[in-house]
């Protein structure tokens, strides 16, 4: 059996070289100046008015999108899990399929849809309904986030739901629980690992995106991702790394929460 462990060697080397060391490098850049001397200035930069504002806005928008994703995805996952689908992989594929259309193009298409004279407003116009004007606002960014990350919420929840023992649900009904009680006391608690991994899978990318805010925010709205991206774009690596360190705190936090719920620590719920 010992032989098997050697199989992990390439992986361990790879992960060390391309995950651990690069992260250490980010930390290094984050706490040094251009000339290489130690400083906390880069990290402190987050307290700078504009950066703080961007961070808080990112937190706000990503939290809202996460909640919306959850509210939309849970019923969807429930309905799908109840369908007599002959192939679960088919459901998964339906959600992965859009990814074959490039992510940037999909987001751009939303611009075309939401634009002042865009598709949606033109359609509403024909129907005599007043148009919506959310392009270039935080609402459009939230919409973009929800759109792009919804599959990452649906799939983990769907996967935990289809694994639920139907008899456990029946047992709850049998013991007198009505549908609401069965849901709140049995189904939801049992699907919690899926919910938690869904939340992380939506929250983290939403928190750190810069493309969605770029395309749908009309450049008016700076998220923390935009700021970091700009720093690196204009060669301010130390500052960018310092801000990345702050982001990593949030990421570590969500990883810790995930680990708490996913006791098997196998992350099986993600897909």
């Amino acid at each position, binding site marked *: 059996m010992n032989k098997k462990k050697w199989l992990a060697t390439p992986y361990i080397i790879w992960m060390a070289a391309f995950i651990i060391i690069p992260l250490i*490098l980010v930390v290094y850049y984050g706490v040094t100046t251009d000339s290489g001397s130690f400083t906390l200035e880069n990290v402190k930069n987050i307290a700078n008015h504009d950066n703080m504002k961007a961070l808080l806005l990112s937190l706000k928008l990503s939290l809202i999108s996460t909640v919306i994703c959850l509210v939309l995805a849970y019923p969807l996952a429930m*309905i799908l899990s109840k369908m007599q689908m002959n192939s679960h992989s088919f459901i998964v594929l339906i959600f992965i399929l859009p990814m074959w259309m490039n992510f940037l193009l999909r987001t751009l298409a939303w611009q075309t*849809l939401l634009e*002042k004279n865009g*598709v949606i407003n033109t359609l509403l116009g024909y129907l005599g309904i007043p148009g919506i004007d959310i392009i270039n606002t935080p609402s459009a960014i939230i919409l973009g986030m929800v759109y792009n990350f919804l599959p990452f919420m649906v799939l983990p929840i769907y996967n935990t739901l289809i694994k639920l023992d139907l008899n456990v649900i029946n047992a709850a009904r049998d013991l007198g629980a009505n549908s609401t009680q069965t849901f709140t006391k049995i189904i939801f608690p049992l699907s919690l690992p899926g919910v938690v991994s869904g939340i992380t899978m939506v929250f*983290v990318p939403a928190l750190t995106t810069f493309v969605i805010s770029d395309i749908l925010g009309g450049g*008016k709205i700076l998220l923390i991702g935009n700021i970091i991206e700009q720093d690196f774009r204009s060669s301010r690596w130390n500052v960018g790394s310092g801000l990345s360190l702050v982001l990593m705190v949030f990421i570590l936090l969500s990883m810790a929460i995930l680990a708490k719920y996913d006791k098997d620590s196998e992350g099986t719920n993600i897909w």
Partner: protein
Amino acid sequence: MVKKITQKLYIALMFIFLYAPIAVLIVLSFNKSKSRAKWGGFTLQWYKELFANQQIMNALYTTLVLALVSALVATIIGTAASIAMNSMRRSPRTIMMGITNIPMLNADIVTGISLMLIFVAINYTLGFTSVLIAHITFNIPYVILSVMPKLKQTNKSTYEAALDLGASHMYAFRTVILPDIFPGIMSGFLLAFTMSLDDFIITHFTKGPGVNTLSTKIYTEVRKGIKPEMYALSTLLFVSVLTLLILINRTPSEEKINKRLKKKAVQKESNSKFRIFKPAIILIVIAALIVGSFAGMKTTSGKNTLNVYNWGEYIDPEVITMFEKETGIDVVYDEFEMNEEMYSKVETGAVKYDVVCPSDYTIQRMIEADLLAELNYDNIPNIKYIGKDYLQSAEAFDPGNKYAIPYCWGTVGILYNKTMVDEPIDSWSAIFDEKYKNNILMINSVRDAMGIALKYLGYSLNSTDRDELEEATNLLKEQKPLVQSYVVDQVRDKMIGNNAAIGIIYSGEAIYTRRENPDLEYVVPKEGSNIWIDGWVIPKNSENKENAEKFINFLCRPDIALLNFDYITYSTPNTAARDLIEDEDIRNSTIAFPDSATISNCETFKYLGDAMTAYYDDKWREVLSQ
């Protein structure tokens, strides 16, 4: 019953939500107009042009090869690691799974940056390999997370039974374990493939010159307007995958229904054959796609190459082809969207470009940072076609014309929609006017935006006076509520689609937009504006300096300059080329070639030093994050 209908309705709504943008893109692929904002009638033209578009075919090929190789390597490493981890004790396994989760949960931007930092730290030139390594890195976790659950389900004693029956470890693995976990491996592979295909951010940070995936190609095009061929390609990709999925999923489902009729209990077993059948189809299709795109692309294997780094959409692709044919030099072409982005790439030396096209003040900055090589004019005889005036203007940032040859020039001005404003606009005051609230497209570029504010206030757009800058910043802050969005090149599509009344635009774009929408008018405000020149320079670390000079010389040829002018519609400093323009209106257009009064009223940007540049950045960020 009502419940069922509500459920169906809900699912339908969600799918409309998920697939609406895709429908939009498919429709756009048949749109005759190049603009996203306008329906110009049905056409199949883009599908035809797609296969002739070398850049897109190259990007497609790179994307597919990248996805396939990274998914394959990740599948092998990941599967091996899963098997090893499965036989580990709890605590080392937990640690390994924790590390596995990092790239999954970490922000893409941090992963991308950290990988870029490591490549730069070990002085590894960014290129295809660096992107490949990055993709493998973020793909492995997907494989592990797909294989691990299957491994846990397999019965350990079957493996031992195989050993007991005399099988070797390898044989037992192949015949007993592998078939069990194969679906997991396969879905891991497919997931990795898809993730690689869809990735933008990590590729963005780790790619080198000439390496473009579809994602990065699109991102550079976002600013300039997406080429319709891209929609066509995406549609083709999407439709082929969709057809594939339908084909795969139809066959086993019928099979299963029959089985259910017979006996429920046996249902699960007999899928394995389809499971192996499915991936086979998928692999064949992927291979076919790669071969197909390979046929459409050209290889750049020879040593006689030239690394060109230019603004997006800033050259007629035909020109590159002609250059390659005439000289036998292979051009590796790469695009940027911002001077600052280009500067940092050249400065780090992570990528060795041979010829670059920065703007005036950035040329000055590069000269000051000693990043440029002096031009050898013996190799650029065609310099004689460039107007003397322009060479003189260029001396403002390049004294003695030692480093740069002007390529394009123009002004920054206001583009407005005649039907949406009350009176002709001739002043910057319009973009600060309350009555155009939400109808103004402001430029999203530090120097341009600050410059406009400074000019409006009557200061120099190269001001370093903190009070003046503070005043300009405040003005821009006040303007923010009026602004519909901050854009650079997207202003074209938005103005064409009547989505705003006023936009800030470069004069070169004005000609194109007016062609698409005759209601539009361009003006250089009376307060004066920026006049800019983009020029070709050769970085010091260029490895093909002579080729670079050949390239510059080629671009200075009047017929070539004309070709470029027709394509990109930016004013050319090539007076010989201007004389060749057939359309009199354009030859005498005040947009393309403003009169000397306008020109003298305008200023060029100067590089203001690192500290001042950072100060400008901070001020602009203050405005945007308001």
